[in-house]
């Protein structure tokens, strides 16, 4: 009998023409907005996550505590130092501890300047090999920096693609000036899709110290583990070692030891929060659309008083009538939902592509099957729920009142 009711409602809805369309329109717009915004929100999350580029090697990153602005190492009150690095090397399960300094530099080329970030390149053979593994990068053109290099640099992809405002693209073999020091470009990095890496200047450590004026202070320490299974234990060990070295009590740490997942977590949380907020607002349209269904179904019940009476006369139970109208309401919701999913998905797809290309990332907007399925079910349910009260009214209809013409 269920399938019959679905067929019935289909017929009934078609027959009601314009008013059905108007009701559908309401839910349609609402669902479109919700789907589009959820999709865009997810696309934005993916794009932002891509900026962070979690490496395939599981490492622990250590930063000094401070205000959460800017790249690692800015906003700190008490920086990490070589002493801290030395102690970390002695901790169990630590294979390598690599220091990293990220500085702001002035890059001059072709009579243009660009203020950008630099990262130092290690001068130890093992560490320099690890540089590429831990950051998941490699060169596209030219060659990798070697631990023996002094005046050579590698540049991020955007310099080669002329996406930096320098008037001309930079190629392997070109000379550039960094903080007024002349350096030679020996390698261009592959495109990472990350704003930071695509605009980076990689400078050998000694030269970077010279140019940017740091020595013992360290912005970031990357710890490579011998056994990644013990990552949580090692994190704790590192924390207690640093507490000792830096002379701070538990709970008062002026540093931060984090596993890769943790960093991404925070970003995710913020973005998800924003997403939820916007979606709640969009849901308002859905609610208004649902009200439209209540309205339409109430009217429909009133108009079909006679038919209801007839059906009762030919043997329909109250529950039969109830189900029929409930399903009809659900179908209204479902139809609006389907249309909304189609348009909303199209909007979010193109929107995501737009955002990604703006940020220079290659993000494939994913078609979230689960979201679509949930929305379909929810549309039907919302429709049905809106229809409950009208359906009850219909079922309670006394056949006698209406049959006699």
């Amino acid at each position, binding site marked *: 009998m269920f399938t019959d009711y679905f067929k019935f409602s289909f017929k009934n809805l078609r027959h009601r023409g314009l008013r059905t369309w108007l009701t559908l329109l309401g839910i349609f717009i609402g669902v479109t907005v919700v789907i589009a915004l959820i999709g865009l929100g997810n696309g934005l999350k993916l794009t932002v996550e891509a900026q962070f580029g979690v490496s395939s090697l599981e490492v622990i990153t250590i930063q000094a505590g401070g205000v959460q602005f*800017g790249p690692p190492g800015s906003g700190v009150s008490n920086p990490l130092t070589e002493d801290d690095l030395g102690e970390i090397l002695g901790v169990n399960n630590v294979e390598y501890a690599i220091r990293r300094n990220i500085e702001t530099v002035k890059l*001059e080329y072709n009579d243009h300047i660009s203020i950008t970030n630099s990262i130092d390149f290690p001068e130890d053979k093992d560490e320099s090999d690890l540089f590429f593994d831990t950051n998941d990068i490699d060169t596209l053109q030219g060659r990798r920096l070697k631990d023996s290099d002094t005046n050579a640099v590698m540049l991020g992809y955007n310099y080669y693609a002329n996406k930096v405002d320098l008037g001309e693209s930079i190629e392997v073999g070109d000379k550039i000036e960094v903080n007024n020091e002349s350096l030679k470009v020996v390698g261009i990095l592959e495109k990472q899709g990350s704003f930071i890496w695509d605009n980076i200047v990689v400078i050998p450590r000694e030269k970077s110290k010279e140019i940017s004026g740091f020595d013992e202070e360290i912005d970031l320490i990357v710890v490579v583990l011998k056994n990644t299974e013990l990552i949580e234990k090692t994190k704790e060990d590192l924390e207690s070692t640093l507490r000792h070295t830096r002379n701070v009590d538990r709970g008062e740490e002026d540093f931060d030891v984090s596993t890769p997942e943790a960093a991404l977590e925070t970003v995710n949380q913020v973005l998800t929060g924003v997403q939820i907020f916007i979606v709640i607002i969009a849901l308002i349209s859905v609610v208004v659309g649902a009200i439209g269904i209540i309205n339409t179904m109430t009217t429909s019940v009133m108009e079909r008083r006679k038919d209801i009476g007839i059906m009762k006369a030919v043997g329909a139970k109250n529950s039969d009538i109830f189900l029929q109208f409930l399903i009809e309401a659900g179908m209204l919701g479902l139809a609006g939902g389907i249309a909304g999913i189609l348009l909303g998905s199209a909007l979010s797809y193109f929107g995501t592509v737009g955002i990604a290309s703006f940020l220079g990332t290659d993000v494939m907007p994913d078609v979230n099957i689960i979201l679509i399925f949930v929305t379909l079910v929810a549309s039907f349910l919302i429709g049905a729920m809106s229809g409950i009260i009208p359906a009850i009214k219909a079922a309670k209809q006394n056949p006698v009142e209406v049959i006699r013409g």
Partner: protein
Amino acid sequence: MIGKEGIKYSLRNLKKSKDRSFFTILSILIGITTIFIFISFGLGLFSYIDELSGGASADKVLIMAKGSSAPGLDTTFELNSDDLRVVNGVTGVYEAEGSYFKVIKVEQGGEVRYTFIASYTPENPLILESFDIGVEKGKNLQPSDSSKVVLGYNYQDKDKIFSKAYEINDRITIDDRDFRVSGFLESIGNPQDDSQVYINENAFEEIYPDTTSYGMIIARVDKENIELVVERIEKALRKSRDQEEGKEDFYAQSYADMLEAYSGALNMIVGFIVLIAIISVIVAAVNTTNTMFTAVLERYKEIGILKAIGAKNSEILDIFLFESAFLGFVAGIIGIAIGYLFTQLAKSILISLGWSFLSPLYNVWLFVGCLLFATVTGAIAGVVPAYRASKINTVDALRYE
């Protein structure tokens, strides 16, 4: 037009189909309330920005080194006393001071917080002027105070920054050194700024000798020609730092310009959200059209009767138009009322949390605008059904059972 009888007739019809009227009003109401809430918050934010950019900051120019997202985070490019001298020498600059900025660690009991410390010269606190605030409680610093600090507003309330509140003359531990609290500043309105610590420039230089660069230089300039003065400052600094135009490692901006950037972003965000709220109103309008169509169908025969006894087409149109507009109007009133209550409630919560700069603001146009929007939406939604009603064939209608 619609006469008194027409109005009575319309209102009675609306009352008769109470369910339908209720749902229609509810639809429009939800949209209007949302719009009201967001616009009032938007207005609040805009006025906050206006406040900041107007008043005492209208004649201030800000000079900062490029590369840092916030002053004091980056010391790659320096601004120092030489630059300050240059700026002071520019025509149109009445006076200029530099402020050091640094990230500090503040401790209380076992709690640690990181925030900024800023230096200023108490005889000439340009940085405080630019925020249009002064020392509200306690005393301003004296040039000789090497171990006293002035705290941002939030430190005097408990559980805003630390669990315990600070009072005048309390001890405060910064970077493992002890200082005494000299006074508290007025509230700027946002948690970040209200948690800053301020110290004497001399004291700062003594305690942090490694920080040689100002976080920012603030200049009080000739308000009338502010843009011209900004250009002159840039030119002078370029010359003294030996940099070509387009290749500077600093920038100078009037406070007003800087805030414009924020209001630009704010515009977009509020606009976006209001857009979505408007979509709800559109959906509500659709519902209203639906309702009016139904009403017309229900009163099909009645309309025929009205026409038979002499009603003109235009009068039928007016009656239905009035009904849908009235529904919108009622929705508008209720929506505004609910929106107002909600924003008032939110306002008191925000203020108690220290986010007073997010408070909503109202103006007459907000109320009038929302009401008008609601009524017009109702009217427009009813146009097509009303038109159809007016065009009903009298004879057919009378025959209708």
